[in-house]
């Protein structure tokens, strides 16, 4: 749901500046998992980050929280570079940034009770103790739709959806204002996915949260996000508001991605023209030169192999990285063959 109708420009909560995360595999081999991402996440919005496996979306999410150390670049939280803070200051700031993981089975300590799991951050950040902490844990469980009777139970006694709720309660324990939700619904059944999406949306409104919502599921992303950023082989290739990116994708990869999503309507499916891409996502170890998408792009021309496209504001608040389009000719179908208006 859009909350961006306020007349004043919304404040940037988290600013990502030319962030790079490179993993050295030895033997001169390097994975550029995140390769120069710049992105503003606005206070109160849900920014959806979508891409296929290996595109670097989870690494980006982790690097924003410094759970993975970036190779270079900056992450500013309320204009403060977290990397420059130390000790007490860092601890104090860090609690405002939390994460929810994909696999609710692997991310909870099986030897801790629900009460301990949710209460641990309260202790770590010295926010509450004893009776007060217990009270707080009970409130948190209720907030995420779990009975406070569960407090002494262990994770294995719960279903996937309930475990995800426990993970959410734990993230909320420290009153964060920014949460990275890394594929929070991917491991869940359809009926449970809807419950978790609604819960996250409710919490966002009630607690003024800001989300970076990472998913490969475009239908979910379209539903929960205000804006969507599309990632391919370590780079952002398109950013626009959620509706626009679905109705009017500009970058050829986004077009293919959107058209590949099955729509739960047989009549629509029967008449749909799908762009089926050739081949696989190239290995991030040896990414293609120039535009990383040129090996699969139906519109690629020779110059695409050489020039790395930058994100350009093609339409108001709609950015795309493709040299074959420009603000004057935003739709690639209208571009004369063999030309690259983005280079002019």
């Amino acid at each position, binding site marked *: 749901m859009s909350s961006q109708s306020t007349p004043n420009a919304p404040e940037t909560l988290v600013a990502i500046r030319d962030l790079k995360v490179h993993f050295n595999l030895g033997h001169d081999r390097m994975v550029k998992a995140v390769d120069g991402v710049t992105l503003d996440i606005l206070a109160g919005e849900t920014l959806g980050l979508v891409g296929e496996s290996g595109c670097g979306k989870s690494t980006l999410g982790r690097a924003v929280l410094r759970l993975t150390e970036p190779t270079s670049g900056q992450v500013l939280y309320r204009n403060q570079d977290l990397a420059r803070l130390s000790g007490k200051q860092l601890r104090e700031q860090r609690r405002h940034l939390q994460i929810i993981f994909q696999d609710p089975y692997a991310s909870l300590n099986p030897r801790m009770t629900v009460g301990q799991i949710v209460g641990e951050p309260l202790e770590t950040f010295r926010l509450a103790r004893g009776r007060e902490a217990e009270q707080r844990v009970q409130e948190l469980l209720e907030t995420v739709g779990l009975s406070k009777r569960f407090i002494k139970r262990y994770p294995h006694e719960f279903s996937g959806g*309930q475990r995800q709720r426990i993970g959410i309660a734990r993230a909320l324990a420290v009153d964060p204002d920014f949460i990275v939700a890394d594929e929070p619904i991917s491991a869940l059944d*359809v*009926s*449970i996915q809807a419950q978790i999406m609604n819960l996250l949306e409710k919490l966002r409104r009630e607690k003024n949260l800001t989300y970076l919502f990472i998913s490969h599921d475009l239908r979910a992303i379209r539903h929960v996000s205000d804006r969507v950023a599309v990632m391919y082989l370590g780079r952002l290739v398109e950013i626009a508001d959620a509706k626009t990116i679905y109705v009017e994708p500009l970058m050829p990869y986004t077009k*293919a991605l959107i058209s*590949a*999503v099955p*729509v*739960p309507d047989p009549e629509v499916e029967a008449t749909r023209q799908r762009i089926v891409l050739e081949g696989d*996502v190239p290995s991030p170890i040896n990414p293609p030169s120039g535009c990383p998408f040129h090996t699969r792009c139906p519109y690629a021309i020779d110059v695409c192999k050489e020039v790395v496209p930058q994100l350009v504001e093609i339409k108001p608040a709609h950015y795309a990285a493709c040299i074959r389009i420009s603000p004057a000719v935003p739709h690639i179908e209208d571009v004369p063959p063999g030309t690259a208006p983005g280079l002019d």
Partner: protein
Amino acid sequence: MSLLEVKNLRTYFNTDDGLVKAVDGISFQLERGETLGIVGESGSGKSVTNLSIIRLIPEPPGRIAGGEVLFNGEDILSLPAEAVRKIRGRRIAMIFQDPMTSLNPFMKISKQLMEMTELHLGHTKAQAYEHAIRMLETVGIPDARARANSYPHEFSGGMRQRVMIAMALSCEPELLIADEPTTALDVTIQAQILELIKTLKQKTGTSVILITHDLGVVAGMTDHVIVMYAGKIFEQARTKELFASPGNPYTKGLLRSVPDPTAEQGKLYQIPGLPPDVAHLKPGCPFADRCERAEEICRREFPPFVELTPDHHSLCHFANEVYVESVNAKRA
């Protein structure tokens, strides 16, 4: 005669938690050349149904407790094991969700494909090899002749699934069972694989059973759908009919809980609660606790399987009312 007719199939498992009736008295049929979708959430019994059809239920703890699986009129459940082995792979082929665990990691791709036709079609090595190459080309493996000598780990997930499809189709089976074939794949690769299954189906006339949790995949790929819940068929209908006028509250809830990318954002419909523990089902309808229109009778009596039209059935005390509502809503 239908290609496949499943009658009152029951598959039970003995667990520490008691007897689990994973599939509990389901019946359906599949005509030649058609695709049947089986939808359900985890634990609904959709995979067990298909493992039962090809007699791959691990016994113990499982056992097929009753029913018939008529394949071209012949009951697979009462055939000797040797006869079933001849059908499996030859006339009924399967592909599974994770191609890595279904391929032998120590064996060259070509060898694995060759085994199929050497065993089932009596091919010589040379014939089998040429056939393997042709199949790899058919499923779109680039440079098939060179890549046939690779090992599975040298292929990407999408390519491995193509190899699985090549293997499954190498003996021109009459029935292909695909259990979540694209769930582990990225969406652009999923589109490739689904497109491939469609094209090959048209070419060979193979019937397909497609098991999936993704209603979008069902909408695009199938002629008929079965919706399973707690080991039962809750609804079955032609695909168009099921999406247009569902006659069961569970199906309706499922359809409404998938975000529609073409609609405006807003609160998503959610089915409350959790799927039931199949080992401890209460009397009455297994969905009653989560159902918004459940009444007292639903908690007391097991619902009837109501015929809404000759090829549309729903397991619900209020099937007719739900169906009429759907039809009217569609008209409005």
